């Protein structure tokens, strides 16, 4: 960790200078973000000296105050470029991006500009004070005229232009620097496509309906229902989902057994989306998960959803829990096939980075041997996350990144982070296997077949 931090300071300074310049000229969100991220060098350094997770969490809390699409971009980039220490990355990866906070008059104006009428005319009651920041906006409680409690997500005006502007700036900046080796242009394109899709609430309405139907087999997940007549591209009204955010949930001191159950469900939910649906919720912020007593999970904010190509999914199925030798020919062929899908050749360097990742992380966290299938992995161990992050950035250095990885990695990071905070013990391989069998069986999460009970 330590030797990676030193050159980063230089890069950070360069970045800061560029950012300060760009902020002065274009006034983008990204500029402000980068400025405050890097320029508070002295204050930041003091805090960084105590490189434990707690300090990092405090810093990210401050970073959390920064908002705008740049937050999302910065989050993804910092993860990719490996310029920050791991503890901070862990926290950053989970950060919720938000737009600048809106005062009630602006919320009213935005609702009116988008739905044609003021909130007071559209709802029986509308809470002017937001209860949460959302992707690129904020969320308000309200009650419809028919008495249904709902949440209303209101987007900060002009956000789409801001996103386009930020990415234009970033491309210019990226072109001339070493950073482009770390963040290849296709990945930047992928990020832009995803982030600007998040700004389209019509699309999110479709996602909500899709997931409400598709996740039904996993009885424990609850998804909000959209109210199309009170929604537009910039305002989204949906039914209220009960439950607490992870902080609150952990304060209620759930038992180890319950945390294990929730952890298993989260992991199962993740692999169900990838392997069965080929579509997944790719905003890993833990504000997007609500926890109910008895282990129920509410999932909100479907702004960021990624669809995977079927052949990519079948490749994942073949690679997951690969039983044979990962150094050998067949595994290499599978990986080469994956790269071929994207018109990429797998170089030697790429291959060895991939094999290393597969062996050192997946082989350990998802033991492929049948006899170890029931083994629970204890995510309380921070080494899991650290190894995941450092191997991911090795992948980037080896230019092994595929556009598909950007969102997958974002989501996976969020999952491990949540499991770590839950201190959950999860039978990873058993659950993944459950999503690879045909036909689909009932949920395996929390099922009593575990050896340890």
């Amino acid at each position, binding site marked *: 960790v330590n030797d990676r931090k030193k050159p980063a300071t230089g890069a950070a300074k360069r970045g800061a200078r560029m950012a300060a310049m760009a902020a002065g000229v274009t006034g983008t969100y990204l500029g402000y973000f980068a400025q405050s991220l890097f320029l508070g060098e002295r204050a930041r350094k003091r805090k960084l000296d105590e490189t434990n997770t707690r300090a990092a969490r405090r810093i990210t809390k401050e970073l959390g105050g920064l908002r705008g699409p740049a937050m999302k971009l910065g989050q993804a980039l910092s993860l990719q470029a490996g310029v920050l220490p791991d503890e901070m990355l862990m926290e950053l990866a989970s950060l919720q991006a938000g737009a600048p906070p809106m*005062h009630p*008059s*602006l919320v009213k*104006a935005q609702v009116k*500009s*988008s739905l044609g009428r003021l909130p007071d005319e559209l709802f029986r009651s509308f809470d002017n004070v937001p209860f949460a920041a959302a992707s690129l906006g904020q969320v308000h409680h309200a009650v419809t005229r028919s008495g249904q409690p709902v949440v209303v997500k209101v987007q900060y*005006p*002009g956000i789409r232009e*801001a996103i386009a502007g930020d990415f234009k700036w970033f491309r210019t900046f990226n072109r001339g620097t070493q950073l482009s080796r770390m963040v290849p242009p296709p990945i930047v394109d992928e990020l832009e496509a995803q982030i600007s899709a998040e700004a389209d609430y019509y699309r999110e309405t479709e996602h909500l309906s899709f997931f409400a139907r598709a996740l039904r087999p996993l009885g424990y997940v609850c998804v909000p229902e959209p109210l199309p007549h009170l929604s537009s591209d910039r305002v989204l009204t949906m039914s209220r989902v009960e439950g607490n955010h992870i902080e609150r949930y952990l304060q209620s001191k759930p038992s180890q057994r319950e945390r294990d159950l929730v952890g298993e469900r989260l992991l199962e939910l993740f692999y169900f989306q990838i392997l069965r649906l080929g579509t997944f919720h790719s905003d890993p912020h833990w504000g997007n998960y609500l926890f109910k007593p008895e282990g129920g999970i509410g999932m909100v904010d479907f702004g960021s959803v990624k669809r995977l190509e079927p052949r990519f999914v079948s490749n994942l199925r073949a690679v997951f829990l690969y039983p044979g030798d990962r150094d050998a020919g067949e595994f290499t062929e599978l990986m080469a096939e994956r790269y071929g899908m994207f018109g990429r050749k797998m170089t030697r360097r790429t291959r060895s980075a991939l094999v290393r990742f597969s062996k050192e992380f997946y082989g350990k966290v998802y033991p492929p041997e049948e006899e170890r299938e029931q083994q629970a992995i204890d995510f309380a161990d921070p080494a899991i996350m650290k190894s995941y992050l450092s191997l991911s950035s090795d992948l980037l250095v080896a230019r092994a990144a595929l556009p598909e990885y950007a969102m997958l990695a974002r989501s996976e990071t969020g999952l491990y982070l949540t499991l770590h905070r839950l201190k959950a013990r999860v039978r990873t391989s058993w659950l993944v296997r459950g999503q690879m069998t045909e036909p689909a069986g009932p949920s395996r999460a929390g099922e009593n077949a575990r050896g340890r009970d």
Partner: protein
Amino acid sequence: MPARSKPSPVRRKIPRKPPGATTRRPPRTTTRARRTTAPTGPRGIGVRARHKDALRARILHAALALFQTRGFDDTTTRQIARRARIAEGTVFNYFPTKDDIALYFLEREVDHAIATVRQDPALAKAPLEEKLFALIQAQIEFLTPHERFIGAAFVSALRPASKIGFSLQAAALRDRYLAFVDELITESFPRGRRPALSWFAPHAFWIYYLGVLLYWLHDSSPGKQNTLAFLDRSLKLGVKVLKRGGVA
């Protein structure tokens, strides 16, 4: 404060209102209110005055409809009279020129915006930037149905002979508006703690307001949301500058 209670010289031909009557008149949210005036109005306002008010509103309503469809420059007084179904001479009695109609409209716009800010209890304790936002937003909402006319009036106001830009009435209207802005600034600072720059703030605000109007006229984003974003960000910055005495 003083400018608001000063008898306004704007309304030479408008005898019906006592000075400072902005809040007494029930706020008219749209110009379509012309026929809704009940025959029995509040006591104290004469029948003739009410009649004149109604007629003035009727002329304005007809004129605005024509400005929007035909354009400000191409609309004649005769067309206005015909549309309002009154004699052309009557129009002249009330409004000697088209510019006077425009000014009357702008006066009502300012009345409406001030009333909106003052009548919203939620705004009483809001930060300065939100009050200013609500003020401009109320103006823009008032202007929205007449966007084409505002564009023309904006250009027309730049002519040296324009009453909209350079008359005494226009100056008085602007003073009344800026006095209100000044009032909002004053009330957001504790007594005696007004920032050094605040004497200049209303003047700067006027230029800013014209800029916002121009931005709004040319904003082609859906629902003109870029104007909202621009307003929000610039007001936050402006208030910050004001508070820190000129350093952002």
